Every structure is written in C-alpha cells, then in structure tokens.
C-alpha cells in the first residue's frame, strides 16, 4: 500500500474514532474556559425562608428544634455549626443555613447541569483510573490526526501550497500570543 493512501486511511479512521470525544472535549473546553464567570458543571440556587428563632442551647436540642421548625423529617447527612449563631444542615445537594437567633434560613441547592457535567468530568479527568489511559490514547490520536492531516491533500491545496500558509498561521498565532503575554502584557 502506498504511504499516501495509508496516511489518508489512518486520518479518516482515527478521525471517526475521535469524533465523539472531540465534540465532548470541545464543548467542555468552551464551558470550563469561562469558569471564572459561571460554574460549568452545576447550577446553584439560593432561596430564603423564615422560621421561628431557635432558642435551645444544647447542640442536639438545637438540631432537633431546627429540623422540626423547618418541617424536615428525613435524617440529614450531617449537621455543623460554623459559629455559635449558625447551624448548617446537609442533605444531598441541599444545605440549610439557619441563623439561630433570627430564624432566617438560606437554602442552597446545587443541581448538576445535565450532560455538561458529564462532559466536564470526562474532560477534566475527574474519574481518574482507566479514564486516564483512554484520555491519553485520545490525546495521542489528536496528535496523529494533526500530523496525518497535513499530508491528506497534495498539490496547490496541500502542504506545499495553501496548506503551508494556513499551517504557518496556526503556528504563529499561539507563538505570537505567548511572546506578547510574556513581554508586553
């Protein structure tokens, strides 16, 4: 088999295999790039409510009284007092912060963003373990795609023609930015 034909087949088939993960990593890349402005994996909502002040002084009694006043019957995962005036009650993806003297309650609910959370977890290698290897193979396949992609076309649109200009621009863009970032920004 000719080298060029092998290169095209390799580029095509690895491209098919990498399609799904490229979409996942691309979408997640956009999402996590802007995580200073938003949380790409979860939505957090804060609501408030008011209950009667909790006047008990013993820890267990405070918890029992607060749960009763909140109308919560399910056993919480945990409870914690960060300071003498506050009680935090934890459920799965739900935290109640009770200001004991005033009875003001802040309910903090976190909800995973469907699909996007899974994309981000895969992209950021949250699962670790076997996924690390899969992600490594994927990264290597991207390198392979980039290299084989250079040699798919021949002639004026190939690497000796238009391709050379576009590839040079692709190399210059990050290089120029990095020089700007180091010395001028």
């Amino acid at each position, binding site marked *: 088999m000719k080298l060029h034909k092998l290169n095209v087949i390799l580029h095509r088939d690895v491209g098919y295999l990498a399609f799904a993960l490229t979409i996942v990593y691309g979408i997640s890349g956009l999402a996590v790039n802007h995580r200073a402005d938003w949380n790409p994996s*979860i939505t957090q909502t804060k609501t408030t409510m008011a209950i009667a002040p909790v006047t008990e002084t013993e820890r267990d009694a405070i918890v029992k009284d607060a749960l009763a006043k909140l109308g919560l019957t399910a056993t919480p995962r*945990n409870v914690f007092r960060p300071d*003498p005036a506050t009680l935090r009650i*934890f459920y799965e*993806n739900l935290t109640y912060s009770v200001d004991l003297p005033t009875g003001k309650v802040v309910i903090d609910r976190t909800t995973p963003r469907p699909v996007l959370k899974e994309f981000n*977890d895969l992209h950021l290698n*949250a699962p670790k373990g076997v996924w690390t290897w899969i992600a490594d193979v994927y990264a290597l396949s991207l390198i392979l795609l980039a290299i084989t992609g250079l040699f798919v076309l021949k002639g004026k649109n190939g690497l000796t023609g238009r391709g050379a200009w576009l590839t040079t621009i692709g190399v210059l863009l990050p290089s120029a930015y990095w020089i700007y970032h180091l010395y001028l920004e």
Partner: protein
Amino acid sequence: MTRLVAASLALALALTVGLSAQAKKYGKPLTLKDSTKVSEIYASPDKYKGKKVLVEGPIVDVCAEAGCWLAIGSDKEFQTIRFKVDDGVIVFPMSAKGLNAKVEGVLEVAMLSEAEQIAAGNEMAKEKKMPFDPKTVKGPKLSIQIKGEAAEVK
C-alpha cells in the same frame, strides 16, 4: 431476552448499591493509619507544621469553582480546616458536601497579612457570590491548611 435484561438491571443495581456504600477515593492512597483531631492541630500547629497528617470529619464546604478544596469540620464546634489540592489533580464534586471525609496531606501554617486576607476574602466572595467587608480584617491572622495528596469520601 427479558430474563437477560432483568438480570443485567439487577446486576447494575447491585453494583451501584455496592459502589455507593464504598468510600470514594481521590488522589493517592491514604498512607497514615492514625488520624489527628483538627482541634489538636489548632491547639499546637507548630507541632504538626510541615508534617503529614490524616484528618477525619464532615465536609462542610467544597470549592464551587474547581473542586480544589474541602472544608473539613472539626471535632470541636465552630472550627474547620481547609484541605487544598492542586487544581485539576483532584476534583471534588459539590455533591460531597455533608459526607464524611478522611484527608491526608502536609500541614501548612502561615501568618497572613491584612492584604493577603483581603485578597483571599475577595476571591472567596466572588466564588460564593456573597459580600465581603475588608473592614472585618483586623491584623495578621494564622492560616492553617492541609496541602492535599489523598482523600476518601463516604
């Protein structure tokens, strides 16, 4: 075919239940057997400074932005210790809040200047979308945290 589907579902359910009962491991395996109470660390930080410690407690807060730290509740009320990991090396999910954790790492003790506290407070306020008043910062403050390497959450 129906039996196969039912058996597969039962197996998946059993695995899910089994896995959910196990501690979820993050980072390197824990190496220390004996844990140190958070209150002990606060009582004598210099004794543990620079040493590897294992701490157990409820997860009372999680870094919302990058999952890069946990706040672990102390055995003593009104006290927490931060378990910090390098960004991206370990990513703690927000859903871990309220679960119990065993965390292991090296204890870092530093005296934070007012400017450092204000910078940290502003960053935390931005992350939590809550107000922060720099006037609440009064003088240098001792900062104690565990630089993390390993954690188990259950």
